[in-house]
């Protein structure tokens, strides 16, 4: 068993863990964390693929590396956006709860126009 295989299996396990967490965790923040775990498993898989393609004096194929860097940036922006949404929801639902049930936001008719 070579090192690449070890990390390949590790990546597969991280994907499985992330999926399980994303499905079963009721808290949105935990879902976001599980998504990040899942993402890191996928990125590791790219890394393993690149490592297997080591050639021409490169220890790791540069193309998958570049894809991973792009992917990490995208995943990070997604995390930031999701957390911003979450904090805003926390804030608004807290203020709705404080101002009582009679607030206009609860009117079932007003779901957009």
């Amino acid at each position: 068993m070579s090192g690449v295989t070890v990390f390949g299996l590790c990546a597969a396990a991280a994907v499985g863990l992330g999926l399980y967490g994303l499905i079963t965790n009721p808290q949105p923040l935990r879902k976001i964390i599980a998504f990040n775990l899942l993402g890191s498993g996928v990125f590791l898989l790219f890394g393993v693929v690149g490592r297997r393609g080591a050639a021409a004096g490169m220890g790791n194929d540069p193309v998958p590396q570049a894809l991973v860097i792009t992917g990490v940036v995208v995943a990070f922006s997604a995390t930031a956006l999701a957390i911003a949404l979450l904090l805003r929801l926390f804030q608004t639902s807290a203020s709705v709860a404080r101002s009582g049930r009679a607030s206009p936001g609860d009117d079932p008719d007003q779901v957009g126009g």
Partner: protein
Amino acid sequence: MSIETVIEIVLAAVVLTLGVWTIVVPETFSATVGFVAYGLLVALIWVRLDAADVALTEAAIGGGLGGVLLLGAAARLRDADMMADARPGKLLRAGAAALSVLTAAVLAGVVLLLPDPAPTLAPAAVANAWATGLSNPVTNVLMAFRAMDTMLEKVVLLLAIIGVWSLAPDSAWGGRPGPRHQADPRGVLAFLARLLPPVGIVIGIYILWTGSDHPGGAFQGGAILASMWLLAIMAGLADTPLVSHRSVRFILVAGPGLFLLVGLAGLLFGAAFLSYPPALAKPLILGIEIAMTLTIAATLGLLLAGAPERSTEP
């Protein structure tokens, strides 16, 4: 089994243990800390996979910004059960576990089945490095061969900013994100915030500059600069800027803007969109990277700062 393999197994086991901890531990806060630790250790795996560029990215994101983002949210949302879905029943959880294990097993099988020798683009990337004059092939892929992806990704970052800002209350639109932080000017935090940023800025610029020939580059450098800015903000030494300020807006689009302009210049005068004339390739790419570093630093900083909360009046 060589000793290297043993080490790799130990490393993978530690990382996976942290992963399991992150998923199964009941308190959200512990899970978050576990994930930050996980992210830091994954950087080790990337070094072991000889992908130092990615390792740097993971270290900057996982160690600095990701940790700040997740821990900050976890600390604020501590007891926020009101947003949670219903907890799935035991049967559903068992089913989900079985399916996840099955998926992981299928993936593991596929990984073991990958062809040997593996197909690769490494020789092609190395052979075409002449076109840019940069000897870090990852930078070449990001800035030349697959420049389109990089440009679109920068637009994704900008959209994320717009998405975060769109959550502002109407009254605070155009104002400053987040609360005004305060700290004792003689305290530990202020001391750190005075000492660390100069060092950090030097390191950030070094990572950017070294990226043309060695692992490093715009994103990693920008992430470090963003962290330093956030440190100053958290210590109360600086305030978040007004998001309606023209110069803020300009910095946020400088990177993709310059990228697009250079690309269109290539379309008009050169060989193709996003092609660089060989003589000018290196300075052009460096110029774009410098602009992108600034943009990334500002973008990441503002992404973490959140939606505008304080209106334009001071």
